């Protein structure tokens, strides 16, 4: 009845007094308050209530899964997988699904902002913004300009590399928390050492009949989770006659481990030894001479050091001997050790022993992505520390940051924040007001992934070379104001963002001279076309086009370009076995009775904390929502007098972090684990936590909201206690820290989906 009222003035009413709304609800439609009026000035076809679908690529991680986004009336409504993209074949992970909440996140940077390192926040227009970028480029000697970029948005990386080359600036450094926790550098180094080429190995999970995973959490965040999950499913149930068997070695039961038929907890850092021991047992069982690689290990000794029973090792070896296509995967925390590289090599050697290189269900080398000359792996932690020392030394005058949040993602001990202080000018292209953006001089907000052009290389995850394409699915986020008298709607742009590529191109044009020559493009799209143009001639493509414009159109329509047939390279197994692998137990830094095992939260990933629905997703193994927890084995906790929801202080040589305890029945007694992803001090209202009292009345704009001192961290960041220790490949030895655990006496009740009564039998008198 009171439809007009509720439609027009509802928001006012909602804030004015809910009592009125109660009445409205009573006699009016149940949910008319949602403004579903179309944006004004829309083309006619958007009015008839039909959806339009656009193909693009997910930018929540670097895997490059293809998406089909359903849009309606100029809004992106639902993310679906692109069924034809070889990486994900129509599937998506939770983070991909929630990417819309990034696009429509209320905490996006509204306009180019003069941040002044958080001191003086004032909005500005794009022209002056571009002027500032141009000056930064022009007024500094090229060698003093540095670019720090995330693992996403490859086209921007290419553009910046070209720019850097042309003007003689150092090549951009790429980095991401995921690449740090995945130890990509270690993997590619191991591949280089053993397989002869520095590339991502590809593990053909789908066709293996028994899989040994040494810490590789490929169902969560590792490399290309969706692709590997598909492979896992095929391994399990693809072959109707035989169900694939899966054994996982890790100190804690990760989500991946929870799917294993046998989860074998061991002392962190002994994965390599275990691999070698198994290899030796297999070799002996097969008979013949024990290869050089396994000669040095003594299974019995390994059993005692790693804590894995000898029978178990023998039993596994037996399984491998009987298996048709066994496969061993190194990854995750196993590589984040001082001996990570040798662990990787040991596991690859185990594969070589079972002679599965280049065979179905075996180890391959991922094909290079189209228009890629060589595999550009992200910078290892060691290289980042070098970069930071360069910053400290003051040899960097202007720093451009895009797509990465080092203040949050890097260990405190690297001292990035301090180093930032010695850089005169820091320009951030962040979409969200994250820690790094706030600490920089300017924020020139980039589009969200769903609003931007581009392409994403697929480093691993598909058998074919794949180049996933991005295109804007919506042209910006608008808000509609309604004239209370006439009822006429008018739409305004809510987030005045601009593609960083466009900004750089415009800036170089403005700067003129060699800068203008460096990027001789009208806009971003023209640059992308210049990168695609040589694909036209490529054979065996998913589509072909006579000339570049048609090609680009198809490229966007199909959401990328890929080869029809697999182009997996077969590594040479010859040298692997003869080369001796010197795997010894890992070195642990610092004092303390516990080994600290950080892992990337499966639901949040590296940057999901500002998406409310990812926060609301229960962690697969602990079902904790909206917060950080510390996993401790119940027995250990009992000895320490710690129980659930006790806030403990975790002290390492590098720092201290506080979080609430979750008594986790499936973790090594000598290990405590903690998820990475929470603990933001900025990055929006959902990533930080706000006092309940002000929660419901606080109406100030979010730009002031989050860094206005009102917000305090939600959860804790394990990176705070990580020291600067690296493995042989230069990756961070994040699992190589010893820590002290102290009870603080505080309590913080963790929000769990599970019932502590039903699942742990609390208060039931006896377990049920």
């Amino acid at each position, binding site marked *: 009845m009171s439809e007009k009222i509720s439609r027009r003035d509802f928001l006012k009413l909602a804030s004015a007094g809910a009592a009125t709304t109660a009445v409205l609800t009573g006699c009016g439609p149940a949910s008319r308050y949602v403004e579903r009026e179309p944006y004004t000035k829309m083309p006619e076809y958007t009015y*008839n*209530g039909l959806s339009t679908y656009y193909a693009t690529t997910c930018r929540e991680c670097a895997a490059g899964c293809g998406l089909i986004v359903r849009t309606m009336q100029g809004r992106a409504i639902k993310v679906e997988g692109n069924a034809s993209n070889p990486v994900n074949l129509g599937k998506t992970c939770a983070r991909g699904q929630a990417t819309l909440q990034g696009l429509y996140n209320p905490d996006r940077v509204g306009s180019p902002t003069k941040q002044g390192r958080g001191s003086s926040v004032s909005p500005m227009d794009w022209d002056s913004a571009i002027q500032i970028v141009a000056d930064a480029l022009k007024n500094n000697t090229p060698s003093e300009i540095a670019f720090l970029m995330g693992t996403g948005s490859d086209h921007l990386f290419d553009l910046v590399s070209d720019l850097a080359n042309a003007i003689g600036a150092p090549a951009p450094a790429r980095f991401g928390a995921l690449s740090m926790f995945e130890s990509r550098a270690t993997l590619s180094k191991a591949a280089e050492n053993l397989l002869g080429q520095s590339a991502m190995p590809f593990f053909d999970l789908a066709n293996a009949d028994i899989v040994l995973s040494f810490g590789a959490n490929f169902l969560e965040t590792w490399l290309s989770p969706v692709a590997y999950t598909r492979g896992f499913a095929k391994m399990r149930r693809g072959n109707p006659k035989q169900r694939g068997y899966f054994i996982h070695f890790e100190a804690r039961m990760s989500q991946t481990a929870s799917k294993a038929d046998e989860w074998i907890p061991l002392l962190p850092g002994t994965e390599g030894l275990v691999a070698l021991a198994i290899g030796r047992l297999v070799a002996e069982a097969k008979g013949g001479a024990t290869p050089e690689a396994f000669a040095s290990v003594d299974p019995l000794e390994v059993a005692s050091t790693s804590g894995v029973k000898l029978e178990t090792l023998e039993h596994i070896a037996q399984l491998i001997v009987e298996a048709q296509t066994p496969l061993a995967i190194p990854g995750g925390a196993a590589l984040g050790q001082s001996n990570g590289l040798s662990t990787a090599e040991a596991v690859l050697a185990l594969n070589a022993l079972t002679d599965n290189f280049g065979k179905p269900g075996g180890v391959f080398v991922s094909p290079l992505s189209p228009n890629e000359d060589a595999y550009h792996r992200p910078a290892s932690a060691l290289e980042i520390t070098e970069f930071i020392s360069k910053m400290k030394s003051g040899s960097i005058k202007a720093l451009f940051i895009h797509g990465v949040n080092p203040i949050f993602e890097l260990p405190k001990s690297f001292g990035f924040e301090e180093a930032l202080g010695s850089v005169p000018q820091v320009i951030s292209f962040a979409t969200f007001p994250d820690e790094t953006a706030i600490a920089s001089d300017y924020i020139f907000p980039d589009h969200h992934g769903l609003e931007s052009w581009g392409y994403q290389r697929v480093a691993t995850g598909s058998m074919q070379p794949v180049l996933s394409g991005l295109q804007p699915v919506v042209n910006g986020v608008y808000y509609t104001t309604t004239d209370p008298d006439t*009822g006429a709607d008018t739409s305004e742009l809510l987030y005045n963002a601009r593609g960083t590529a466009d900004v750089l191109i415009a800036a170089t044009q403005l700067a003129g001279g060699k800068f203008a020559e460096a990027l001789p493009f009208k806009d971003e799209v023209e640059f992308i076309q210049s990168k695609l143009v040589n694909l036209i001639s490529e054979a065996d493509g998913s589509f072909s086009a006579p000339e570049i414009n048609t090609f680009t159109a198809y490229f966007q329509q199909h959401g990328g370009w890929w080869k029809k047939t697999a182009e997996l390279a077969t590594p040479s197994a010859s040298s692997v076995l003869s080369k001796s692998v010197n795997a010894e137990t890992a070195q642990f830094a610092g004092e303390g009775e516990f080994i600290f095992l950080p892992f990337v939260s499966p639901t949040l990933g590296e940057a999901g904390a500002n998406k409310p629905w990812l926060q609301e997703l229960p962690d697969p193994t602990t079902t904790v929502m909206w917060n950080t927890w510390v996993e401790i084995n119940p027995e250990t906790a009992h000895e320490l007098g710690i129980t659930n929801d006790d806030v403990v202080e975790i002290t390492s040589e590098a720092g201290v972090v506080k979080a609430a305890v979750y008594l986790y029945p499936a973790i090594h007694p000598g290990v405590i684990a903690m998820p990475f992803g929470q603990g933001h001090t900025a990055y929006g209202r959902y990533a930080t936590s706000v006092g309940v009292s002000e929660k419901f009345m606080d109406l100030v704009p979010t730009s002031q909201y989050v860094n206005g001192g009102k917000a305090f961290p939600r959860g804790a960041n394990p990176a705070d206690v990580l020291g600067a220790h690296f493995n042989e490949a230069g990756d961070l030895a994040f699992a190589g820290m010893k820590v002290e655990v102290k009870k603080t006496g505080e309590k913080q009740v963790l929000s769990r989906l599970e019932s502590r009564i039903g699942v742990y039998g609390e208060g039931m008198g006896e377990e049920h």
Partner: protein
Amino acid sequence: MIKKFFEWVISPMGRVAVLIGVLALFSLATYGISQSQASPPQPLEFRHDVHVTKGVQCLYCHPGALRGPSPGLPTITKCWGCHQQLAITKTSPRLEKMVALIDPATNQPTMGFEWVPVVQVPDFVHFTHRPHVAAGVNCEDCHGDLSKMEIYENPQVFNMGFCLNCHKEKAGDDQEKLTKLTDCGTCHY
């Protein structure tokens, strides 16, 4: 005091007063309902009767009704397509608003009208025009005879009873069809 009140209520005058009060409440409610059905102000008083009597088909301006849920409201481009050829466009004061929006140089509209939808079903009703048109329901069956309406007004309250009556009628004795057409899940989800 209370005593007086009691006596007054019992007295004929009191009873009349009570009656009036009750009536006032009812009429207020009825007024509310009628208001919710009145047409909202439009950027331009579009005359349906003229167009319909001139033989313009409904689906010409509202083609969405054939394809999907909403018939769609025409943009000024569509209006201008015809009107630029009509003499009355220059003369009619009512059409000045439209002419004002046309850029004489390009003869293209600079911006569109922001029509305000008149027929609004609540969010929890998922109405789709297509199947109704496909089932041979005429526009005027629900929207009334527009050749007699200067400004469009809802001929009746679009409530559940209105839908159900028609659905039952159409279903007739066909039990299966009735089930489908009176199923809550057909409209509410």
